[in-house]
């Protein structure tokens, strides 16, 4: 079952992503245990985790935040497809970076992306889910880590 101290790698990965990709650090709020469901933003990128641990990691963000993030990355394409691409890439990068601590057997899938629809989040028996709040510029997003 996911322990609170294991969240550190995801918090660091999120911080690193904004610092490097957007050259502007995000503020990370206090992670909290998710009971039930959490509200999704406009776009959600989800990674399925298998191997040593099972569950999902997903990043959900509003379109406005993703648009500014793309601008900071010198992108000029703000289409629906670019938003989908970006949420998937953020989820993939943070999850992949977590292998630094979880190791090679922390197997991640390619991202599944949801936009304007309620994603079906698979529930792994025995998994515990934490929400990591992300504040960047005037926008808020969430990283949800649900692992056995």
């Amino acid at each position, binding site marked *: 079952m996911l322990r609170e101290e294991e969240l550190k790698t995801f918090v660091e990965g999120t911080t*690193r*992503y904004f610092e*490097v*990709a957007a050259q502007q650090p995000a503020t990370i709020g206090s992670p909290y245990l998710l009971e039930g469901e959490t509200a999704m933003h406009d776009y959600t990128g989800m990674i399925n985790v298998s191997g040593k641990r099972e569950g999902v990691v997903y990043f959900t963000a509003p379109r406005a935040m993703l648009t500014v993030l*793309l601008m900071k*990355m*010198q*992108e000029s*394409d703000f289409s629906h*497809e*670019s938003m989908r*691409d*970006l949420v*998937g*890439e953020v989820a*993939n*990068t*943070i*999850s*992949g*970076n*977590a*292998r*630094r601590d*979880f*190791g*090679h057997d*922390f197997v*991640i*899938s*390619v991202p599944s992306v949801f936009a304007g629809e309620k994603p079906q989040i698979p529930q792994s028996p025995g998994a515990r889910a934490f929400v990591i709040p992300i504040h960047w510029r005037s926008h808020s997003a969430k990283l949800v880590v649900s692992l056995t």
Partner: protein
Amino acid sequence: MSSDTPLDRRPVKLLIVDDSNIVRRRIERSQQFDDLQVVGTAANGFEALELARRTDPDLVTMDLTMPQMDGIECITRLVKLKPGLRILVISALADKATAVEAMERGANGFLNKPFSDRQLNEAIAELMY
């Protein structure tokens, strides 16, 4: 008339492989070498192999987590197809074992995502010169 650059020196041909359009464009935009020519971009291993046959690249940037054919399998096949090809893995997978496996299959360098322009250019330069 003399020149420091030999007349027959041709650009280094680069193939960019990543399932994210944003990352492919970012690599293409951020590389700062006059003597590097992007000859193609691919979104998965199958596309990469097809493009490698057609464009004969000297250097490939390779993502690992991709649909249909992942980067590790693609590296293995590319090295068989074109021995001597230089491959820079650019991946979010940050564990040591993945980097070691990629190198054993034939990669020559490894850069973790997220990366800065400077990190990208340094990593490319190491394989170009």
